[in-house]
Each structure stands twice: as structure tokens, then as C-alpha cells.
């Protein structure tokens, strides 16, 4: 196994394949790199394989093809070492009915060398988690906050968060983001966040990776992608129902002679090409948002 230099990528996945059955492939050659210090949002449809990917990263799945490296280690073979270095909030965490938040900390503490009870208390206070509350009595959001505290208390170098904010109210969400951003400001900490909420993603992530049909269909820094992605408003000279845009543009909407095209690559040359098309009367770029980008990456035309 190749140990990565810690300053390059926290996570490196190459051609990862996984299938539940032979006819049901979930991951079909996923390539993903998570640079140190970045917060990457993992997006995708329901059932796209985000949780499966998370399980592979935490040593819960063997991967017959491809390589996975988390903080320079193979998570399947060095599961314990990997889990000690990361903070993981799973989509569903169940604890015994009798267990209080503090008892959960007591259970976790011996297994994480970097665990600091003072840090756990500080985070709990900041996020509004009562250490003496029974875990089972907490609301869904309360459980998520308690799990987040448990995942952060040993100051992990990498955070894996699988739908961590779905049950949080607005205030709790704000507190969580503040805590997360504070933690991530420290040197060398990274996070991979699986979420469906683009608002959350825009708030805390600087990169996105879109998982679609078993592959990463879009990956990069959000700002850079926004700049690179283009939607073009086109007006045709006359009624030309058979007119089709040149590749890689696709028609998003068509109303008579007015069309809206979108493309994810090479937008400037496409605009030049359309400007010289005799059938095109006028062409101009239209501003785009993150939702359009993700929708396009998921193979669907985003609503205008």
C-alpha cells in the first residue's frame, strides 16, 4: 500500500468499484481526491452510493477493484488506525437506551488517543448538548448534535459527515456550522460532507463532488465550477425546429425562436461558435447557480 504524503490528499480514491450483486453495480470506477484542508461536499441522488462510499472510507466494505486511501492508510486493512484518525458521523447512529451522552463519551474515550474530555464538554456546551441527557430521549437533531460532539472531541484530522444536518433547526445548524468552521480552520483538517442540502453545502464546503451512475460526474472547487459552467441564451434568425446546438451544449428550454443552452465545458469557444452560426441571431451568457451545476451533473436539466 502506498502511504500518501499528508500534505497532498486526505482521501484518495482510484477506480473504486462496488456492487451489491453482480447485476447491481453501485460504484463503477469512482475517482476522487480530497486535498488536505478542504471541505468537500459529496452530492448525488438518493441511492447514488454516497453512504456506500462513506462505508468504504471507514473500513466497512472491502473493495474488490480500485484503491482507497484515507490519511495514507488502507481503511479495510488498517481500520482501527483509520478510525482513530477520523471523526465520523454516520447517517444513523444507535446507542443503548440506557446510555447518557456522558457515558457515550466514557465509552469512546479509551479508543481515541486524542480524546479530550474538556474539549467534549466545551463542544457540548457550545452546541447545546446536555451531557446528562439520555441519548435515547434526545430528538433527532439532538442525537445528531451529540454524535457530532463525539466525532469532534478527539480533534480528528479528517471528518466524514453523512447527512449530519438533516434534523437540525436553524439555530442549531448555525451553531454547528460555526463549530465546524472553527475546527476546520485549524491546519490540515479536512472534511467530506454527504448532503442533499445545497444551502448547507454552499455555506461550509469549498468543493463539491457529484456522484452519478457510479462515477464522479463533477468534481472541483465551487467557485471555479461556477465560473466554468455556462448557460447561453440564443435567439434564432427564423423558425428552425430542426436546429440543434453543437456539442457539448444541450438545449435546456425552447420557446419558439428563443432557446436556453447549457454546457459545463468550453463555454467561451461554444459562444464563439454560436456567434458565427448563420442560424443564430443573438447569443449571450446567463448567470448560473450551484443547483444548476449539480442538476446538470446529475444528467438533468435544471429549471430556469
Amino acid at each position, binding site marked *: 500500500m502506498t502511504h500518501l504524503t499528508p500534505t497532498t490528499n486526505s482521501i484518495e480514491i482510484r477506480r473504486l468499484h462496488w456492487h451489491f450483486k453482480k447485476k447491481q453495480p453501485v460504484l463503477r470506477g469512482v475517482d476522487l481526491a480530497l486535498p488536505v484542508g478542504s471541505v468537500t461536499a459529496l452530492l448525488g441522488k438518493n441511492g447514488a452510493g454516497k453512504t456506500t462510499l462513506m462505508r468504504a472510507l471507514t473500513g*466497512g466494505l472491502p473493495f474488490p477493484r480500485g484503491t482507497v486511501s484515507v490519511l495514507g492508510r488502507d481503511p479495510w486493512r488498517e481500520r482501527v488506525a483509520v*478510525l482513530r484518525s477520523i471523526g465520523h458521523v454516520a447517517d444513523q*447512529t*444507535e446507542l*443503548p*437506551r440506557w446510555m447518557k451522552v456522558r457515558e457515550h463519551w466514557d*465509552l*469512546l474515550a479509551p479508543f481515541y488517543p486524542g480524546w479530550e474530555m474538556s474539549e467534549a464538554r466545551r463542544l457540548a456546551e457550545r452546541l447545546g448538548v446536555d451531557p446528562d441527557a439520555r441519548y435515547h430521549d434526545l430528538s433527532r437533531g439532538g442525537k445528531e448534535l451529540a454524535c457530532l460532539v463525539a466525532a469532534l472531541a478527539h480533534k480528528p484530522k479528517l471528518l466524514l459527515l453523512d447527512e449530519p444536518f438533516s434534523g437540525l433547526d436553524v439555530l442549531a445548524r448555525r451553531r454547528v456550522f460555526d463549530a465546524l468552521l472553527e475546527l476546520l480552520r485549524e491546519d490540515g483538517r479536512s472534511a467530506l460532507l454527504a448532503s442533499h442540502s445545497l444551502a448547507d453545502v454552499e455555506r461550509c464546503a469549498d468543493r463539491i463532488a457529484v456522484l452519478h451512475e457510479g462515477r464522479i460526474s463533477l468534481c472541483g472547487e465551487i467557485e471555479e465550477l461556477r465560473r466554468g459552467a455556462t448557460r447561453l441564451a440564443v435567439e434564432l434568425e427564423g423558425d428552425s425546429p430542426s436546429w440543434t446546438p453543437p456539442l457539448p451544449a444541450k438545449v435546456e428550454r425552447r420557446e419558439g425562436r428563443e432557446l436556453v443552452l447549457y454546457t459545463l465545458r468550453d463555454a467561451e469557444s461554444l459562444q464563439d461558435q454560436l456567434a458565427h452560426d448563420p442560424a443564430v441571431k443573438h447569443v449571450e451568457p446567463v448567470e448560473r447557480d450551484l443547483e444548476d451545476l449539480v442538476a446538470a451533473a446529475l444528467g438533468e436539466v435544471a429549471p430556469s
Partner: protein
Amino acid sequence: MNQLRVLLYKEWRDQRTFCIAALGACLLLSLTALRIDGAALMKRSFFVDSVLPVCCMIFAAVLATESIARDAQSRVADTLARLAAPRTLVWSAKVLFVLLAVVVFILALLPLDYCLTLASSGGVLSGDQVLARPQFWAVTGALATAGLAFACVLRRALPATIVAALTLAVLPFVAGGLPPCRLSDWLYVFLAIWSPVELAGLACASFAVGALLAFSVRHADPLGWRRAVALCTGVSLVLLPSVAGSARRAWAAFDMPFGDPAARVCLAAPSPDARFVAVQMGQDLKADSTWTGTPGQELRRRRQRREVWILDRSCGTWNEIDTRDRELLLCSYRGFVRGPWDARSRLSVRFYSSPFVGAAGGLQLIDPATSTVVLAPPLGISMFDTLEAETGLGAWYTTIGYSRQSKLIVRWKERGIDLELSDRVVFAASPEPGILFIQRENGLVRHEMASGSETLLHTFPFEIRKGQGLRVSPDGRHIAVLGGGITTILDSSDGRLVVELPQGVWLVDWSRVPGRLGLVDTMSSRRELSWFALDEKGVRTLLATDMPNCVALGTDRLLAYDDHRIECMKLDGSERETLYEAKP
């Protein structure tokens, strides 16, 4: 250490309610039992011997399965799987907790067990309480580890407990229920080698390893096939080498080689035509992996092995049927006595479904010329029915016992005539149909079933010994009565005294030679044994052998044998020939 401590604490908190409730339930049961008195004394004994141990076993099994199934059902197991802890450590904590809890539970019940034992036995402590026996601890441990292992696969407590109990119980049943084959032999070897405590210990070890492997499966399928495969692998890892090692030398060791000094001649029976001699050989084996033959040694853990060899005197060759355990079939059953040979010189043997004596047995008829089995009725078919139907040498009568009424009915099968007797009565049947010899209060009578008439043959001042007390000669002309230390031979038709053998002289075998009654021996001391031929006039002719066993071979020869040697000779000792001799 801290890691193990927190995991143990988690297990304790998970199972605390169950442990306390189980202990409370046992205490409540015991207090209830203590309050029962008088006629329920037996019930209290039953309670101490059975109910408390079974409660402990159930507690151990349920605790073990619950420790796994509870986490699996509540999905806490998934959370534990994401903990930065080796799976082995989590598993060890569960096993250690179950072990400690079961030990504490039983120890807590031990004083109560003693109190109950004292109460049920009137203040006498036998010192043999079930809860203190190693077998109980071993079986409880095996049940708990099996429950743990199956819970790792099934993820549910109740099915895992049931499957564990069935699995542990099924092995002896399989061994007993299988038809004789290599597998059943192999199972018997396995079961015979190990003591119950060792077997339970082996089960503990194998299921513990299996449970560890099943628990360590990180990527499990919904049906649990991967965990099942892991469990089987773990169990096999421990069990297969043990079993293979145990049975390694079994086949070679069990089959007695010709001339083996550890094998002894138990019985020799010449066929009616004197062409064949069936010899039953026996050997005691030390029940361990070496299976050493142990002649003459009394060992606690030994197994008896018997084989039947057949000598064809026409060509002098020895044959063995196969390597299975067999013995010559000598019937002495409710007045019916017969040897192993039938009129067509076929040999009746009892075979066993294991390499040792003591397993389920059945009848086989052997063709001595080829040493092959010509008839082997399935197990469960009465040997006597088979003998009657197949050999034609069965009794002309059948008996029906009514144990509740202490009655026995002798039925003349051909004519359907019944005679009711007390089942304590000593009787013998004549080869002549319809004739019985019965001991009545006034003496020995001859009963003719056709007419129902009885003739007093002789009166004796003693009780006739059961079993071999009455013996009718093969031709039905004479009857030997043993009692009071003497043997009296009477004419079976009129009760005339033919010969009275004094004390120390025994009729060993009837003779088929006209004019000769049989073979008798006299034993003045252990080393001074003399053999005589007894004729109808009571004259005894000394035979030229001093071996401990002697039978007639045809009309003019004698077959004499001891543990390691068989020889034949003429009655006067001439033409002596050694048929078998163990290697020195």
C-alpha cells in the same frame, strides 16, 4: 485495560436487568420449593437435580445470545462496528462478561442448592450436587458458546438458543441413528475417545473460535451467509484436527491382526459338520489417540472390541467378515437356548454399528465358506423373529410378557395353544414341540401343552437356578438341572436319574455323539482343571487337555482353547494340532 473495562461496563448495563431478574426468579422458585414438604420430597429432589441446573443452562444460553442479538436488533452493533476498537476486543469483552456473569450466577445459586439438597435429603449432604459437577460446568459452557456463535449468525436470541441446544444434542442422536457406515463409525470413534467433559470443552473451543470469526465479519450480507461460513470455518478449524487426530489410527488399531498378542480368544464354536470353527476374538483398547491394546489391564477409559474369525478346516485358512465389531450370537431367551450355527451351517452373529461394543446392534447370518453376509435385517427388527423365520431353528413357541401383571404366556405357534406362567418361574422348552419343563412347587414337571397334562419328573430340595438352571439336550432326551451346587441329569420322558454330577463337576456342553452325554470339567483349583467325556452310564473318561475351554469337534475330536491358543486333538490326545497361536 480501560478499553476492556468500558466495554464490560456496557455489557453489564445492557444485561443488568436480565441478570438480576433471572437470579430473582431462581430464588423465588427455590423458596417455593423449600415451602413444599411431606409428599413433595421427591419433587424437591427433582428440583435440585434438574430444575436449578436447567435454569442455569438457560440463563447461560440466553445471556450469551442476548449479548449479541440485543446489539444487532437495536442496530447498536453498527455503531460498535464504527468504533475504533478491534473486533476481537469487542468480542472478548462480550465473552468475558458472559463467562463472569454465568460463573457468578451459578456460584450465587450454589449455597441455595446446598440448602435445598439438605432439605430434600433430610439433612444428609451427599457431596454430589449437580451444580458442582465438572460435567455441568462444561455443558453449560458449551451451550453458552454455541449460543454466542449462533447469535452471531442469526442475530436473534431465541432462534440462536434453540439452534445451539439442538446442535449440541444432535451429535449423539446422529451417531445412534445413522445406519452402519463409515460416518457413523467415525462419529462413534470420536464420541468414544473423548469424555463428556472433554467433548463439551472441545465444543466450547470450537464454537468460541467460530463465534469470533462470525463476529469479525465486517461486510455481512442480509441473510448472514458470510457469517455462517465464518462460523463453520471457525468450528472446523478446531474440530477437524481434533477429530482427525482422534480417529487417525482408528481403523488400523481396531482391526485385530492375526496373532496379535493383545487379542484374546473369547469363544470358539465349531459348526455342526465340524468343517468350520467360528472364533470370537476380543480386545480391550485404551480410549485415547494411540488406541493401545491393553490385555489384562483394568482401565477406566477403555473400549471393548470383538471380532469373529472363521477357520475353514478343509483348507486351513482363516477369514474375517470385515472390520466391524461382531460377536457370536448365543441365544438364551425365555427358555430357548441355541448356539451360533444353524442346521445349514450358517453362522449367526450380532454386529454393532460402531467399532466398539455397546452401540446399537443387529443380527447377521454369515456364509462361512465365503465369509460374506447373507442376511442382515434392518436395525429394529427382532433378532429372534428373524432367526425363526430364516434359520428354521427358532423355537416352536413364542412368549408374550406382561410385565405389569408379572405374567408370561408361552404360545405354541403352530397350534395356537397358550400356557400362562408367572414370569419368575424357571422353565425350559424341549426341541420336541409342545413339551415344556417347568419348576413347580413340588418339583420339576414335564408339561404337555397338547393335553395340558403335567408329569412330575423329580423333586429337588433346592431352587433351580435361573438362566442356566435347566438345560435340555439337543435331542431332547435329557435334561440337566443345576442347583445346590450339583448338576443332575434326568431322562426327560420319565424323570429317571441318569447321572448326578458331584460338586465341582460341571456339564459344559452337550454332546451329539450317540451314547455320550457331553463334556464335563472338574476344577479343584484355578490351575488344576480336568476335562472328561461323560457317557450315559455316568462314566467319565479323562481327556488329554488342561486348557480352560473345551468343546466337541465332530464326533471324535476335541477343540480346546485358552486366551491365546486354539488346538484340536482326538479324544485320546493324539493328532494334536495347533490351529491358532498368538505371536509372542
